């Protein structure tokens, strides 16, 4: 159970989640070794030997109980420390999302993922929306906000390398966010049982450099534009990277 088992980490908050896991790993790891060690040592040291009688002790006085209550209080203190340390990361991942550079609507259905970009006008539900099946393309170094919905059952949007997991519930719009740090191709995993073919509900995440993403987006806008329109004029406003 070594922590090198964790996959590579490509999101800005990933290190915080990893450090929470590591903090717990080492804290409980040491506690576990101490508890198991004591248990095994007692079992061996006090194994039955001829002529020796067990020590009569009920463990009911305060002095005796201190031997179990003090370790328990130490466990409580460590646990609370873990929780306080983790609460900040939880806050960042799930509550205090930064202002997004790009918003994508994610629609989950049995057994696939659809991604909708708002298009040049920056508004969802208009003719210039860009639809993508299977693969979510995002720029590295930008805050991406996801609006997750499901058409049928509960799914879960999970990218191990992002350390992001969020259930997708029909009838709700649930938001999530991430900022990827490293360009590359990753897998989107459905991690909530959604039917017999749940295992096949796979998506792809393409994290591109900002330039590559801009080119990709221009291409999508051009392909999506109705005949006669001049998509080139609108490219500037389609830039998801605009601050402010």
């Amino acid at each position, binding site marked *: 159970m070594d922590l090198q088992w964790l996959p590579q980490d490509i999101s800005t908050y990933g290190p915080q989640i990893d450090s929470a896991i590591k903090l717990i790993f080492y804290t*409980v790891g040491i506690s576990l070794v101490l508890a198991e060690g004591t248990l095994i040592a007692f079992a061996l040291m006090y194994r039955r030997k001829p002529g020796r009688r*067990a020590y009569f002790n009920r*463990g009911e006085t305060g002095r005796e109980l201190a031997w179990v209550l003090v370790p328990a209080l130490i466990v409580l203190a460590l646990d609370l420390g*873990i929780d306080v340390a983790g609460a900040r990361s939880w806050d960042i991942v799930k509550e205090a999302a930064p202002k997004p550079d790009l918003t994508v609507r994610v629609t989950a259905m049995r057994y696939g993922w659809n991604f909708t970009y708002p298009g040049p006008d920056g508004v969802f539900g208009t003719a210039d929306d860009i639809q993508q099946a299977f693969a979510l393309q995002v720029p590295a170094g930008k805050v991406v906000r996801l609006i997750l919905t499901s058409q049928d059952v509960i799914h879960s949007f999970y990218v191990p390398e992002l350390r992001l997991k969020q259930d997708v519930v029909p009838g709700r719009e649930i938001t999530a966010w991430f900022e990827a740090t490293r360009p590359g191709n990753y897998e989107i995993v459905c991690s909530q049982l959604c039917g017999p073919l*749940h295992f096949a509900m796979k998506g792809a995440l393409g994290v591109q450099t900002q330039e590559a993403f801009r080119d990709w987006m221009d291409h999508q806008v051009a392909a999506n534009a109705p005949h006669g329109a001049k998509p080139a004029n609108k490219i500037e406003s389609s830039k998801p990277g605009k601050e402010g």
Partner: protein
Amino acid sequence: MAQVAVAHAAEHELGFWRKYVFATDHKVIAKQYLWAALLMALIGGLMAAMFRWQLAWPDASVPGWGPMGPQDYMVMVTMHGTIMVFFVAMPILLGAFGNLVIPLMIGAGDMAFPRLNMASFWVFLVGCVVLLASLVVPGGASPAGWTGYPPLSDKVEFTGSFWGINLWILGLALEFVGFLLGGINFLTTVVTLRTRGMTMWRLPLIVWQEIAAVAIFLLSVGPLVAGAIMLLLDRVAGTAFFLPHRGGDPLLWQHLFWFFGHPEVYVIALPGFGIMQEILPVFARKPTFGYRTIIWCTVVACFLSLIVWAHHMYVSGIDPRLATPFSIATIAISIPFAIMIFAMIATLWRGSISFETPMLFSLGGLVTFLLGGVTGIFLGSDTADIYLHDSYFVVAHFHYTLFPVVFFAGFAGIYYWYPKMFGKLMSETLGRVHFVLTFIFFNAAFIPLFMVGLAGGPRRIYSPMAYDLLKPLQPLHVVATVATIGLVLGQLPFIVNFVMSMLWGEKAAANPWHANTLEWTVDSPPPHGNFAHPPVVTRGPYDYSMPGAKDDWYPQTAPFSGQPQET
């Protein structure tokens, strides 16, 4: 009390059917629960071996089954979980041991409501049959997971299983009815039928743990029954309690399910702890450490168990501000359990420990439960859970909490009380072989799954090659599967021992372990009505190695004056 004894004396003349089948004797009902649970455990274990085969060798057909498709795989996973939690853990720990020890340990002739007790078993058994019947109806059994989350479990089009899921709900409902009847009986019996001198503070710990378990079961099962009825109505009457497009809410089910589902962990864990707490002092020849402290911890854990359910729902879409309060409550509940475990370890301190099979299984349970307990800290932390939720880490964690209390403690209890149940001694050699095989193969099966989970491997995935991420983890699945098969085969010495000892075992004396509690003061097996005369209790259950006493044990009924700090 006297009336019960008289009633049973009369029943002694009854024929085969009333004596062994429609029995009202708590000892017979305990055995009926045990047989049913062991049979279901065999089915559940074989299912695990079959779906683990699929995970290790996805291209090979499963022996005794053939090629396993994704629907079959999910049915196996679903039925394995449902069977093990509701039709193995509960009947062994509550149905078998609760029924066996409660009347004997409190000095009663039987349960307060013997006929209700009989009804409890038969309703449970019908539940087993209904659940197993769901495997053979058209459309197949439920593939919706043991947690049965709607809308997947709700609309037939999602699973193709109409009767399968209906019967799954019905089987569970019957199981709940069975244990509700049993639970009422346990509580009433302990409150009203304790013999003279058996105060609440002299009750053996397992009796406390059994009544604590049924108390939280009674408190928590109501919302799940409501949820199950809503789910059934959605399925058969066209309502939409859990269907969002007509105003329902899928998350409502998760709240109702886990409001019960988390206390259920303690419904199982507490009696398992009770068995270990009964066995440790006997084989360490020492009073249990902190008897009253353990009882208070049990009570506190019961209340806390009712307010931790949403830690199963951190990433479900609930208001994220709920996470921290539930995370803190989850941490709080680890404290009474930490104290109980430390007290069990302290019981060993300066004891005189012998390692007969019941003690080996108790210690093995403690060693493995510790790993289950500490890995719960990962999942109780909302932050770490974002990554680990619904991964194999969760699977490994809950097997490390449930297997120790259900199987290690359950086997400990079987080896310990077998002489009392059947009047025969079990083979110590076969018992030790059984322990070694179980301990090694259990750890070898689930340690690899912690690694798969940390590496990001999601649970409930039919093909272990479905994602590139999972391909390098494949060898771990092979190890886990080989060990699972070993774990199932490792039960053969137990089956042989269990059956052979019954037929040819050495006859057991009344008190083969030199234990203090009341069940050891009567013959093995005890006669109908248990006690010829109601026993009078003079002391607590764990006065081992008392200074000034001739023997290193002192029955609860023994008169003794020169003993220190009698309360």
